[in-house]
């Protein structure tokens, strides 16, 4: 067999003075990096298979381990980066499309980091969230332009019936991550946290495990091109239904759950054979145009008695504003837009890193376009794709989002270390795996607690920032770009974002 | 003398009596309890040999807990007669007690066969503190260069264990062709005998003492049936005990080898219970009636009798012979049916130079276990026998190196690891 030219990506440094050969690292590595030699009573490491997940480093009781990026010995070359070389070797050896997990890791501008928030000084008091209510409750769904009301009654009687709404206690939801791509315990953590917080998690295209029907009131179920796991009970169980057209990590292509992750339980949930790859087609084969989407939206509304909002998720692509407008006109109650930094369990690396546009620009354009067309109220706007902090969220709200989806951030809260190997099914943190030896590493009680804590923390920060702006209700910030200023952006970028330059007054 | 009235009368206050009193107190805080013991206090019988061997400095048994029991202890209270018609018990001292409920827990008495010369000074039994004290005093004056122990069963070995610590030469005389024949199988005996040999013990099998010879009323040696002569001025007869029931003749209590009790530890006379080495119960495995004179069964029977005397209705699942012996470098554990009769038994064994483990299965259930040296999981096996857990499906794992609770059926295991209450 020809020698592989691939070189280890990581270096495992073991401090022999600290190592007690307790073998915790050996037991925790699903990639067999650490090996115990009984004769020598020593643990050795072989770096070739290390993915840099840091599981061993975290659990080592004597802190004897360090895993660092290995400096490749090749002559530095600005054009032929180490990553390019690795990929070339790998493809020359395998002849296949390179797969990866998580979101785009390329160095494109992150506009959140070029947007600054406002605060009150003198002319307008800031509001102290410890002493005054600051409201961040959010409703998703179509809003009426006008309420036909019989004002003679006391209280007045509404003649207009409100469209179905999702009530969120925080403007943060958990992105679509299917049971299959993530473990039962990971999904359970998300669902329980969503329920406790009063928000929603999204089933992804993974169907709904029977255990999770219990959380249906806090779950948005997805209907995607593979239609995995979709049946009437599934639609009925959920709080809302989302038609997935595209995903930020892989716009234009379908989904792929490697067979390694199709365990018996996943197979039952998805209604596919154990061990078979679950491949969702690139398009929905019943949606070849916007009219077809309208038919599907209507069909789902009909199937759910017009009781549930229907969301349509699209990837942020060049013409996203016009597409979103069409989606709203097709009857979507919620439009979810996923930017280029959106995560995935498995995607071709070349697509993930090169297709789509940043969500900040997409959001600004979609919101503006819908307002210009006078249809902004007809759908809520949920954005996703690389939201990292409460400040990203509050900036998204100010740009015009009703709420955000967080995926990667939630997984990181659960322990993900972004090793990008979700597609292998060997997640050492028990998140993106179905291996029962690994899945139990995520205790859903801990997972839920951490997610709840994260959302509490972010809520508190959002309230602090809102209070600082002198705003005590989130709706007063939503689309209120006067509270944003741009630094280090070109005029063109500022125009696209609809944000003035830092230094400009009102 | 007038009668002393009591709600509960415990006749004998060794381990069965002690745990009976405790069980009564769990249910009845106030009812009067009188406990009779012919000894001077409450002691732990197994410690007698350890005390002799200087391994413990007291034979006291949990006297620290006595206060909580709130009972009236009558030392030197040897029962003489139980009236046939009345709930009245008369002591050798003439005192009499009228009770509502009684526990007979008078234990066992050593068996001493009618060997000529058995009464001479220097021939002892070793089951009571008094025996132990006598031996100690005897040894103070006459340095025994040889101790002859008659009996190679459990009691004989315990006795041997005690003397080994004292640095004397020990000869063990056993009538059967191997030691500990009731507790272990032939291979078990082999490991034991090897260990004793290494420890310098002399073992004479298929032989017994035909006469204790004496000089001036003091033992000078033991003449064996084979004609062999074992000089020495100290001998211990340790061939076993039998239930102490003679005083119950004529009391209307049904007697077999011991006091015959039902599954509630109650004798044929309502309100009168029996437990411990004096009680004849059904064997958990064979269903045969017999007296199983071991500590754990005494505890269980005492507790159940106590519960039932105080108004509960618990039943005893049956007796299981369990025992453990450590002599020299060998430790043995035995439980249940270790020498089963011919029939449908299955045996699982592992053998190594210094260890031996044997499990006896019948119809997929564990019924007996012998462990030599590797005894750590003894309790697990014994509980499988007690709880009658079908082991068929995981029998291949029972003797694996890392066998543990994890190999057991989840339901059984979870019940145990909850720990709230272990069924005994």
């Amino acid at each position, binding site marked *: 067999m020809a020698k592989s030219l691939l070189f280890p990506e990581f270096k495992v440094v073991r401090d022999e003075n*600290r190592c*007690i*050969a*307790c*073998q*915790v690292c050996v*037991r*925790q590595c699903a990639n067999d990096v650490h090996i115990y030699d009984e004769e020598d009573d020593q643990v050795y490491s072989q770096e070739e298979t290390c993915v840099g997940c840091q599981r061993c480093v975290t*659990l080592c*009781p004597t802190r004897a381990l360090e895993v660092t990026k290995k400096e490749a010995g090749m002559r530095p070359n600005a054009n032929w980066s180490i990553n390019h070389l690795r990929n070339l070797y790998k493809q020359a050896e395998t002849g296949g499309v390179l797969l990866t997990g998580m979101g785009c890791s390329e160095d494109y501008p992150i506009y959140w980091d070029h947007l600054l928030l406002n605060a009150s000084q003198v002319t307008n008091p800031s509001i102290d969230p410890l002493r005054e209510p600051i409201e961040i409750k959010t409703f998703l769904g179509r809003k009426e332009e006008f309420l036909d009301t019989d004002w003679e009654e006391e209280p007045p009687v509404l003649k207009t019936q409100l469209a179905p709404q999702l009530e969120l206690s925080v403007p943060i939801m958990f992105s679509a991550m299917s049971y299959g791509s993530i473990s039962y315990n990971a999904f359970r953590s998300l669902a329980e946290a969503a329920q406790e917080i009063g928000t929603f998690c999204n089933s992804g295209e993974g169907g709904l495990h029977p255990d999770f029907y219990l959380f249906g009131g806090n779950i948005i179920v997805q209907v995607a091109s593979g239609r995995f796991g979709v049946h009437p009970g599934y639609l009925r169980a959920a709080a809302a239904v989302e038609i997935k057209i595209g995903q930020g990590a892989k716009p234009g292509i379908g989904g792929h759950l490697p067979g390694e992750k199709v365990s018996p339980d996943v197979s039952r949930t998805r209604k596919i054979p154990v061990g078979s790859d679950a491949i969702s087609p690139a398009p929905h084969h019943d949606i070849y145009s916007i009219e077809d989407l309208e038919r599907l939206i209507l069909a789902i509304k009909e199937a759910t008695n017009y009781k549930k909002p229907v969301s349509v998720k699209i990837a942020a692509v060049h013409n996203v504003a016009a597409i979103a407008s069409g989606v709203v006109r097709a009857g979507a109650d919620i439009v979810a837009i996923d930017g280029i930094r959106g995560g995935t369990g498995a995607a071709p690396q070349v697509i993930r890193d090169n297709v789509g546009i940043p969500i900040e620009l997409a959001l600004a354009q979609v919101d503006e376009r819908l307002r210009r067309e006078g249809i902004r109220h007809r759908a809520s706007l949920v954005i996703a794709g690389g939201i990292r902090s409460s400040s990203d969220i509050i900036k998204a709200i100010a740009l015009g989002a009703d709420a955000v989806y967080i995926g990667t951030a939630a997984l990181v809260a659960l322990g993900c270390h972004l090793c990008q190997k979700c597609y292998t099914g060997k997640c050492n943190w028990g998140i993106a795996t179905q*291996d*029962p*030896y690994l899945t*139990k*590493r*995520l*205790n859903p*009680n*801990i997972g839920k607690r951490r997610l709840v804590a994260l959302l509490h923390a972010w809520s508190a920060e959002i309230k602090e920032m809102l209070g600082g702006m002198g705003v005590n209700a989130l709706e007063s910030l939503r689309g209120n770009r006067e509270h944003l200023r741009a630094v280090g952006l070109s005029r063109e970028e500022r125009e696209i974002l609809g944000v003035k330059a830092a230094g400009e007054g009102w | 003398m007038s009668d002393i009235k009591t709600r509960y009368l415990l006749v004998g206050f060794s381990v069965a009596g002690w*745990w009976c009193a405790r069980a009564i107190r769990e249910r009845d805080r106030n009812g009067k309890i009188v406990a009779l013991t012919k000894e001077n206090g409450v002691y*732990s*019988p*197994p*410690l007698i040999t*350890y005390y002799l061997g200087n*391994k*413990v400095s007291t034979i*006291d*048994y*949990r006297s*620290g807990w006595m206060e909580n029991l709130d009972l009236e202890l009558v030392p030197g209270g040897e029962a003489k007669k139980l009236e046939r018609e009345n709930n009245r018990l008369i002591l050798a001292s003439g005192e009499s007690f009228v009770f509502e409920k009684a526990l007979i827990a008078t234990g066992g008495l050593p068996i001493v066969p009618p060997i000529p010369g058995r009464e001479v000074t220097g021939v002892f039994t070793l089951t009571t503190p008094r025996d132990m004290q006598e031996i100690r005093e005897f040894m103070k004056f006459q340095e025994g260069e040889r101790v002859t122990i008659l009996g190679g069963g459990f009691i004989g070995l315990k006795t041997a264990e005690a003397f080994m610590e004292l640095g004397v030469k020990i000869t063990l005389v056993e009538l059967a062709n191997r030691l500990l024949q009731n507790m272990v199988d032939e291979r078990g005996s082999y490991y034991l005998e090897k260990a004793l040999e290494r420890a310098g013990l002399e073992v004479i099998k298929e032989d017994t003492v035909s006469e204790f010879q004496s000089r001036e009323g003091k033992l000078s040696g033991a003449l064996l049936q084979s004609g062999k002569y074992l000089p020495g001025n100290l001998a211990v007869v340790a061939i076993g005990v039998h239930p102490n029931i003679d005083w119950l003749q004529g009391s209307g209590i049904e007697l077999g080898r011991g006091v015959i009790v039902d599954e509630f530890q109650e004798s044929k006379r309502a309100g009168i219970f029996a437990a411990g080495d004096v009680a004849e119960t059904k064997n958990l495995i064979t269903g045969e009636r017999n007296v199983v004179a071991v*500590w*754990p069964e005494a*505890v269980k029977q005492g507790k159940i009798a106590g519960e039932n005397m105080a108004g509960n209705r618990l039943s005893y699942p049956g007796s299981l012979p*369990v025992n*453990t012996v*450590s002599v020299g470098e060998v430790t043995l*554990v035995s*439980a249940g049916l270790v020498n089963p009769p011919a029939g449908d038994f299955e045996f699982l064994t592992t053998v190594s130079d210094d260890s031996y483990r044997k499990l006896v299965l019948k119809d997929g259930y564990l019924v007996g276990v012998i462990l030599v040296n590797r*005894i*750590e999981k*003894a*309790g*697990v096996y*014994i*509980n499988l026998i007690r709880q009658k857990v079908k082991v068929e499906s995981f029998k291949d*794992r029972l003797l694996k190196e*890392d066998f*543990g*609770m*994890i*190999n057991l059926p989840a339901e059984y295991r979870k019940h*145990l*690891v*909850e*720990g*709230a*209450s*272990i069924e*005994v």
Partner: protein
Amino acid sequence: MKRIRIHEEYCIGCRLCEINCLVKHSRSGKIIKAFRGEEPRSLPRVRVEEEGYLSFALQCRHCDDAPCLENCPTGAMYRDEETQAVLCDEDKCIGCWMCIMSCPLGVIQRERKTKKVASKCDLCRGEEIPVCVKNCPNEALAYE
């Protein structure tokens, strides 16, 4: 009483409980020294049992009706008034192994040299939370 509860579905088999227990009951109390400087190495009083992908850490349950305690002829096994833990007084222990024979969980270990009970969970006397619980990275053990 407070007990260590086992959540076997979350035991990840890392054995950090054993490691921390060993250190807690070592002479130095320091992890590297306990493993590399102390002879003989102390024994953990908790054991991780494994079968397939299933595992759990098992230590004495401190049963209400503790058979080891009932069957101990010397009273070496006793129940601590304060914590309700079943503890072994090594001064009283004579190494008769009645406790081992009685324990349905097989969690009592013996020290062959001293012929004493060597490895019996003591709920880390003096600690608010036993170290196996405190150091379980996945809360597979709980003290409640």
